[in-house]
């Protein structure tokens, strides 16, 4: 009995620790370069995005998740607003398409066409990039700032503070963060949380 108690305690602590350390990058970490396949079939990396690039808005998203869907229009709006100011959106789908057939490469192409995505939509087939970034759910945003050759993480979290109703949004976190960066300021709110759909990991 006693032994079992210890075991259950260890299990509980273990579970707590595993989720606590699951995160990848922290704010102000340099991110590793990546190259992933875009829906147009070409490989794309962060630094190939636009002229006079100052950074990037990396969004982990997918097709099937209602939260991701609720934010599609707002992600397009972010791209339109900030691409010309040096912060283009780059969307990544890391979900296991076996578990979620909706998230297959073909369905990514279809969804992007339906919604008129103005930004690249990349597939992270090996899920390495999601793991590297510490992305756990969709949608989840990483705002990166270019520092010479590096892309440095400046903001991680939600797009704004209300997923259910865009009309009731009070704080637009990504806009605020990039607003800070464009003025050469420190990002005031650099981490937020939101409910999202868990990224489904492939069985290794």
């Amino acid at each position, binding site marked *: 009995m006693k032994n079992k*108690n210890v075991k259950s305690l260890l299990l*509980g602590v273990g*579970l*707590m620790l595993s*989720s*606590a350390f699951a995160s990848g990058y922290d704010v102000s970490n340099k991110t590793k370069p990546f190259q992933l396949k875009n829906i147009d079939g070409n490989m794309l990396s962060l630094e190939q995005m636009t002229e006079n690039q100052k950074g990037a808005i990396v969004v982990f998203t997918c097709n099937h998740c209602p939260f991701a869907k609720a934010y599609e229009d707002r992600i397009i709006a972010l791209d339109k607003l900030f691409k010309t100011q040096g912060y283009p959106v780059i969307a990544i789908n890391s979900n296991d398409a076996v578990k979620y057939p909706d998230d297959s490469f073909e369905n990514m192409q279809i969804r992007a066409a339906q919604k008129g995505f103005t930004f690249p939509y990349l597939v992270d087939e090996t899920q390495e990039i999601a793991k590297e970034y510490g992305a756990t759910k969709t949608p989840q945003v990483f705002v990166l700032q270019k520092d010479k050759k590096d892309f440095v993480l400046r903001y991680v979290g*939600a797009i704004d503070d209300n997923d259910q109703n865009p009309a009731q949004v009070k704080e637009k976190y990504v806009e605020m963060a990039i607003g800070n960066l464009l003025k050469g300021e420190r990002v005031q709110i650099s981490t937020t949380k939101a*409910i999202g759909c868990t990224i489904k990991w492939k069985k290794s």
Partner: protein
Amino acid sequence: MRTFVFVLFSWAIAFSQSLEKWDYKRLNYVTSSDSDTLYVVNFWATWCKPCVEELPDLKEFYQHHQDKKLRLFLVSLDAVKDSLRTLQFAKNKAIEPFLVLWQEAQKPTTWINQVEKTWSGSIPVTLMYYKGKKVFFTESQLDTETLQTASQKFLK
């Protein structure tokens, strides 16, 4: 047509009164009770596949320990405007007695951190509270064995 709308409307009112609707304050009130009941709180949503997959396990776990001091709350994070659909879903899955509709929509950072600092925001999430203390937290899919092991010493 008018009668139909009226019936639908009164049904909507009736259901809105009888259902458990919680915000963080309510969750905190329920789970900070110092009784020796084990409170199991699971955050899920109808659109979350791994969550829906583990619902039968949670129900089975509850039924297995019905004679003990145990309460189970299945807190749905579905949009508030979809409440009727969520209720229907819960009825189909026969988990309606455990259903709680979550009412917090604004500022998720605040309530997520209040529930658990290390919670990134993905679901399913399961917590256990005993004598006013949080004794278990996991941000991943559960199975009956894990539930058993984690709850064993608190079930009286």
